[in-house]
Structure formats: structure tokens, C-alpha cells
């Protein structure tokens, strides 16, 4: 590591004020700080910094929390491939290899187009430092996309989301909507054929699927029971054992790359909550809101989808992923503690409402989070206002 440090120190003057490459200072700075994390330490005397957490460590924590789900998702892509094509893998390495071939290019495209092209360009034009915000966004975008997504679409969506939803507002920490979800919503509405339906969730690599294969996600299956009138749980089990409650929890099912395994997502949730990076209030209230709304629908329900046991809603689709990793985005969520309870609960409630009552969309978590992102500032506004009022009443002047 010493020689890298020396090399960086050597070229540093050229990038500093007055140097030849002054324009590219922030480009240089981002690489330097990325490798050599804050050198500042507190002295033994005087003020102590209790916890020197900065943006970088914050973001790295989220990336670490995302890794279990990403690794599992990679494996799952390969697993689904062999399930659907009926081919015999020579060993478990083959499963990993298919997954890596599919997932790694998507991640690379998302980073190259988001970070190395868009963000670097903006940092040079607008002269603002490159933040680590995109580290998380760049890994979230592949995880919310189906494994069959064409790479050029990943590139287009990433650039769109970074420019319109983030850089137009001034960069990391200043956006209103979750950047990764804007990328997904963009693809969802621009290329619905690649983002919904039964055919996109399992990578087939040009092979014809085996007889009786159905790439339908659990949400698609239960949504169809509204018309057929069949019991929702029975309809799930008709498609095979992998749609039982327990299997859906472990997550070897078709779906977006990172969303299928609730178990892996919960490991991530524990990391986020233990380090205090993700708000436990949002996670708890999100799941509670979804559960209670589903329970209410179950009690009042008129069709099989409504009458389905609420716990199924928690393990299907992207609900867990969205609540744990996207709703807790500290920039776009409510900032106040009371606001976080309301914000999280509303996301859960809206997700179930969109899922069950809106036939246009099988999954609701994406739009529910975007919707609440829009209303988060309003929630904060009223929470702060109520707080002011309460304290004014207490004041004795």
C-alpha cells in the first residue's frame, strides 16, 4: 500500500489549486479518499469524537448489508436457470457460474454508467466532490431488476435516474426520490415488456424451458385467483413446493435478482439496525403496516386474494427488500422519529393496497415507496409543527 500512497502524493500537486489539472481535483480526491479513509484522528486531550462515522463508512455498511442478498440472488439466477431448462449442472459451481455471468455484467454496467460516466462528468462540470452515495445506488439498481434485463436498458435507466433524480437536485443527500427506485420505475413504465409478466424473471439463455415450466412470480399467481376464484394458497402450491410459505422465505423462487430471499434480507436488516445505519422504526412500522393492512383485507375480503393469510404478503415479492433497503434511505425518508413511524407504516399499507386492489400492478412496493418519498417532507412539516406547538404550550412566560 505504501507505494500507492507515494504515487498519489507525487501527483497531488498537479490537481491542487493552481496546478495543471486543477479541473479534475474532485476526480482525484475521490480516488484518494476512497483508498485512504479519513486520516483525521482525535487527540488524546480535548474534545473526543465518539464515533467518526462519515458518509463513506455509512455507505459501505449498507453495501455489506446488501451482500448476503446479492450473493444469494446470484446463486438463485443459476438455480432457476437449471430448474427451468431441465439441464443437469455438473456441480454447484455451474449454478454459480450462470449467476455470475448474468449478474456481474449488470452490476458493472450500472457502476460504469452511473459512477464513472455520469457522476464524474457532473463532478467536473459542477465542481462538487464525488460522494459515496452511488456505491449503494449502483448495487441497488441491479438487485431490483429481473435477471433477463438487457444491459443497454440498465445503462439508460441508471443515467436517467442519476441525472434527473439526483444530480438535478445537487447530488448525494439532496435528492427527493430514491434514485434506484426511479431507475426501476423508469424501466417499468418505459419498457414494461422487459419488467413485468411471466417471462422475464428466469434467465433461460436461449434454451427452451421444460414442460410445465411457468416463470410466474408468486404475486402473479395469487393475483390471478381474483378471477379464477381459487384459494390463493392452494394456487401457489399448485405451482410446486417452492411456493410454500417456508420456501418463499428462503427464496429459491423466480423474481428480481436481490428480492427473493427474505432470510438474506433479514440478515441485512439486522446489520443495518445493529449499526444504526438503517432506521429500525421504518423497518418495524413498515412490516407492521403491511401486516395489519393485509389482516384488515383478510377480515373484510371478498375475493381469494384478499382472504389470503397476511403472512404470505410479507414473504412474497419485493416487500422485504424495499422496506429494509429502500424505505430506510435516510435522505428520502422522513427525518423526524414520529415521521418515520408514519412513513414506514404508510409504505406497508400502500404496498398491500396497490397489490391487492390495483389490478394494473402485481407489486406495489416500488410505487408505495416513491409515493411516500414525495410525502415525507409534508409528514416532517407537520411533525415539526406539532412539536413546536407542544413546546410553546409548555413554555411559561
Amino acid at each position, binding site marked *: 500500500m505504501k507505494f500507492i500512497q507515494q504515487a498519489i502524493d507525487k501527483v497531488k500537486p498537479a490537481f491542487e489549486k493552481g496546478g495543471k489539472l486543477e479541473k479534475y481535483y474532485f476526480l482525484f480526491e475521490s480516488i484518494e479518499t476512497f483508498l485512504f479513509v479519513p486520516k483525521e484522528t482525535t487527540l488524546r486531550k480535548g474534545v473526543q469524537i465518539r464515533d467518526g462515522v462519515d458518509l463513506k463508512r455509512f455507505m459501505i455498511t449498507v453495501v455489506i448489508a446488501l451482500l448476503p442478498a446479492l450473493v444469494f440472488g446470484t446463486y438463485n439466477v443459476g438455480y432457476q436457470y437449471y430448474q427451468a431448462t431441465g439441464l443437469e449442472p455438473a456441480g454447484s459451481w455451474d449454478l454459480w457460474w450462470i449467476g455470475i455471468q448474468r449478474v456481474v455484467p449488470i452490476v458493472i454496467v450500472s457502476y460504469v454508467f452511473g459512477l464513472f460516466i455520469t457522476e464524474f462528468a457532473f463532478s467536473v462540470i459542477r465542481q462538487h466532490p464525488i460522494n459515496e452515495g452511488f456505491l449503494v445506488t449502483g448495487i441497488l439498481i441491479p438487485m431490483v431488476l429481473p435477471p433477463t434485463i438487457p444491459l443497454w436498458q440498465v445503462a439508460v435507466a441508471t443515467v436517467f435516474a442519476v441525472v*434527473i433524480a439526483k444530480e438535478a437536485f445537487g447530488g448525494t443527500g*439532496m435528492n427527493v426520490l430514491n434514485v434506484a427506485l426511479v431507475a426501476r420505475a423508469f424501466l417499468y413504465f418505459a419498457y414494461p415488456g422487459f419488467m413485468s409478466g411471466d417471462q422475464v424473471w428466469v434467465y433461460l439463455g436461449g434454451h427452451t424451458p421444460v414442460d410445465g415450466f411457468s416463470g410466474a412470480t408468486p404475486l402473479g399467481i395469487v393475483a390471478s385467483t381474483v378471477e379464477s376464484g381459487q384459494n390463493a394458497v392452494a394456487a401457489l402450491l399448485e405451482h410446486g413446493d417452492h411456493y410454500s410459505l417456508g420456501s418463499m422465505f428462503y427464496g429459491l423462487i423466480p423474481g428480481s435478482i436481490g428480492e427473493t430471499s427474505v432470510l438474506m434480507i433479514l440478515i441485512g436488516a439486522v446489520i443495518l439496525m445493529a449499526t444504526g445505519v438503517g432506521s429500525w422504526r421504518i423497518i418495524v412500522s413498515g412490516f407492521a403496516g403491511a401486516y395489519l393492512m393485509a389482516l384488515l383485507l383478510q377480515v373484510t375480503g371478498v375475493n381469494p386474494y384478499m382472504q389470503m393469510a397476511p403472512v404470505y404478503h410479507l414473504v412474497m415479492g419485493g416487500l422485504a427488500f424495499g422496506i429494509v433497503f429502500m424505505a430506510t434511505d435516510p435522505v428520502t425518508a422522513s427525518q423526524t422519529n414520529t415521521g418515520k413511524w408514519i412513513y414506514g407504516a404508510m409504505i406497508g399499507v400502500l404496498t398491500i393496497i396497490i397489490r391487492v386492489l390495483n389490478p394494473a400492478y402485481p407489486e406495489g412496493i416500488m*410505487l408505495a415507496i416513491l409515493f411516500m418519498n414525495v410525502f415525507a417532507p*409534508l409528514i416532517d412539516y407537520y411533525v415539526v409543527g406539532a412539536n413546536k406547538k407542544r413546546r410553546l404550550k409548555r413554555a411559561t412566560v
Partner: protein
Amino acid sequence: MELVNLGIKSVFIDNMIFAYFLGMCSFLAVSKKVTTAIGLGAAVVFVLGITAPVNWLVQEYILKEGALTWLSADFAGLNLEFLQFIMFIAIIAAIVQLVEMVVEKFSPTLYGALGIFLPLIAVNCAILGGSLFMVQRDYTLAEAGVFGVGSGLGFMFAIVALAAVREKLKYSNVPDGLKGLGITMLITGLMGIAFKSFIGIAL
């Protein structure tokens, strides 16, 4: 139950701003502060809630073909619908005047804050749009009232949310060229995506 459904539908699903893009001018211009946005929203709710049923009465008893038969059977063939726009606008303008006087009397601060935009409600496309939708969709009198109030609430909902987002934007570092209306248009577009969550629900 029908009326409740219609109300929910006109607030969320057929939102004036995000489903029909009506009333954009005041939506973009008067959304800098939450308090003024609430004021304007309330005024729109009030005006829409009154004009829709009043215009319904006018349409039903004066303008429609054969509507004037209550006056005399001779008018059975008379169709005054070509006067629809001008009549609706005149009624809206009169009611806006009424609202303006009420606001000035009871809340001078709000009156000052709304400024020119209060009289401009008269030409707010959402208001006229509300009346025309009501005719087009053959609403009854009660439905017209619920639809008017619901559409107004949808507008208020949207403009207050936008105002809160814009207040938060004070902490953002928006590029110079996008400051003001530019970034507001972008936010409106992104909010439109978020509001798509309800479009498609059949009540």
C-alpha cells in the same frame, strides 16, 4: 357507497394534476410555501365544490336540449349548449369573486399571500375542467357535488405535497439553470410517477 367511491376516485385516481394535468399554472406558481399552498388548495376545494353543482343546475335547467321546458312547452326544441363555456366561466368568475371577498374579510394574511392567484382561480383550468367533466360523464347533482369537492381535495393534496418538497429543496444545490420553475417541473414529473400507484384501481 357509490358516492364514497366517486369521492376517493376523484381525489386519488382521477387526480386533476397527475391524471389530467389541469390547473398546472397555479400548481407550479403558488407552491413555494406550505401555508399558502394550503390556502390556495382550500380555495380551490371551495370553488370547485360550489361551481360543479351550480353548473350542473345551469346545464340541466337552462342549457341542455329541451331543458327550458319547465318554462314553456314551446322551448322543447331549444338547445343552448353553444353557450356552455361562456356560462360556466361567468358562474365560476362570480363565485371566485365571492370567495375573494370572504377570504379578504376573514383572513387578510392569506389574502395577501395568495395575491393575484386568487382572482386567477377563475381561469384555473381545473375548475372549468371539473364542470365540463361533470357534463361529459352525466353525473347527478349529488355526484357533481362530491366530484367537485373530491377533485378539489386531490388538487390540494398535490399542491401541499409539492410545497413541502420545495421547502425541503432549500437545502439542495440545484444547478443555476434549473432553479425555480425548472426543478419544479422535474419534481412534478417525478411525483407523477409516484401517483401512478393509484391509476388502474377500479372502484
